[in-house]
């Protein structure tokens, strides 16, 4: 029984444990992803890939702020045609579900990139409709229920693998967008992407990020992400949720599970605590479940809603 304590089955994906590498972290190469899996991740999400190659923004692209990191990488990626090779390679070395993060500028483009990723071997696609710092894509799509529906619908029409939609916290009502995504066919949701933010240097008297605005991640956004997960779970949309935002230890993970997430994604903590964060979370989670007398991690999903 305790061997399967951490097993999670969500949207058709079988995970040995509920810790997942979040998109944007190290996800260019199969070898990097493999290292994350060896460190204990139950699944991985690649960097976001689009139709064409993008060089991203000039530095500074990452800024340390109080209790978090601010980034505006600018979606650097080699384009799906070239990335397909890396996906295929990653599939040969990874023994866990491989989710490919996808972005586009139109619904058709999202669908084309997603279907190419699936052809190359992706076990699922995660739609990045929530990047806060690239114009005409990302959260400009995910902030509008109508464009979001179009994108999800068009990907669903082309792709037979699970479609996960990564939601933006930069909206008035995250539940409205979650509902739109699920109605359009989303098989799972990731809540949430980074919070749109900025940093200014007082000596230089200018914004630090070359792109001025970026996305805040890490500890600072955990309470925001947690509330988003809680709200979405409460709306009873009948799809599983990946909780994402500031998970750095097992307590954070348990909080997200209690709020209604079936698994958690980890990103910023990979810099803060390095790869061992996955094993740390899993160990702590296991100990928590045993101490509380549960037979499966699934039993605590959404439990805080009983109160």
């Amino acid at each position: 029984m305790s061997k399967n304590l951490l097993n999670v089955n969500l949207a058709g994906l079988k995970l040995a444990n509920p810790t997942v590498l979040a998109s944007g972290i190290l996800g260019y190469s199969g070898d990097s992803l493999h290292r994350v899996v060896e460190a204990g991740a139950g699944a991985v999400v690649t960097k976001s890939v689009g139709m064409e190659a993008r060089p991203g923004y000039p530095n500074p692209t990452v800024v340390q702020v109080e209790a978090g990191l601010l980034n505006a990488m600018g979606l650097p990626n080699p384009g799906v045609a070239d990335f397909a090779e890396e996906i295929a390679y990653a599939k040969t070395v990874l023994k866990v579900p491989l989710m490919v993060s996808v972005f586009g500028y139109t619904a058709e483009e999202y669908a084309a990139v997603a279907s190419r990723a699936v052809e190359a071997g992706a076990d699922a696609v995660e739609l990045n409709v929530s990047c806060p710092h690239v114009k005409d894509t990302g959260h400009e799509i995910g902030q509008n229920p109508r464009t979001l529906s179009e994108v999800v619908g068009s990907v669903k029409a082309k792709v037979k693998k699970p479609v996960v939609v990564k939601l933006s916290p930069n909206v008035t009502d995250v539940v409205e967008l979650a509902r739109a995504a699920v109605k359009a066919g989303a098989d799972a949701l990731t809540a949430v992407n980074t919070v749109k933010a900025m940093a200014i240097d007082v000596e230089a008297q200018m914004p630090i990020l070359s792109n001025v605005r970026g996305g805040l991640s890490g500890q600072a956004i955990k309470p925001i992400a947690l509330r988003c997960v809680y709200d979405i779970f409460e709306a009873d949309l009948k799809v599983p949720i990946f909780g994402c935002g500031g998970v750095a230890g097992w307590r954070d993970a348990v909080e997200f599970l209690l709020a209604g997430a079936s698994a958690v994604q980890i990103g910023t903590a990979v810099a803060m605590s390095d790869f061992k964060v996955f094993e740390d979370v899993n160990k702590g989670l296991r100990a928590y479940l045993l101490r509380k007398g549960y037979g499966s991690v699934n039993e605590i999903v959404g439990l805080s809603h009983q109160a």
Partner: protein
Amino acid sequence: MSDYLTKHNTVRTTRLASVKTESPTVKTFTVEDKLCSKAKPGQFLMLWMPGVDEVPLSILNVEGGQVSVAVKKVGDATRHLHELQMGDLVGVRGPFGNSFTESRGRVLLIGGGTGTAPLLFLAKRLAAKADKLSFIIGAQTRAELVYLHDLNLICSEESVISTTDDGSFGIKCLATEPLEDLLKKQSFNMVYTCGPEQMMRKVFDIAEKRRIPMEASLERLMRCGIGLCGSCVIGKYRVCRDGPVFNLSQLSEVKDEFGYSKLGFDGNVIPI
């Protein structure tokens, strides 16, 4: 780790304490920075030129609360940096990455171009520990043999071999050529290298064949500097976090890439 990283990764804006011209293409920039002034040889810092760019630079020296870096004009960012003067505002974060292990015994250092910088820093530390320091310093021309004077002070002139591509000083050859001769005549406990990657690859091939411990400091495109973004990966390693210094066995694991390819701005594999 978390508190440590948060502290070191926070950008500190400061004014250039000095700028020194070393060659037609190389300048030494010095700033006051408490955290970076505690750096170890092999570590690097991120230097921010407000409104322009932020680049990784390996550390040349630390002294009295100050840190110095050697910068070669190679692109837009470094060209801009070369125009800055004492008193101009820059930002620093770091120091980041691992450092060279400080070997005892007989030690050989091979530096190419500005790759000499971190090795000079290392040589200063080793001077007290190692039995003998030998240095091969290579550059394209005599004018580009930077920091030769400082090296001569540390290593004693007879143990410094200079090479230039055009023969304007020292031996006319690549820095790796005297290496084979030297290894035939003497045994070394450790070989350190930093410079153009093809040069380091050659040093690696020789060291591997002769089974001599070695360490090389690698350079890659870097963005975050803290092991997150994946821009600088080689095999399973992140140059910014697991490196920039790698030993022989680690370099063997990335043989297909080391000296041959790296990731470009868009994450695509490009030849070196």
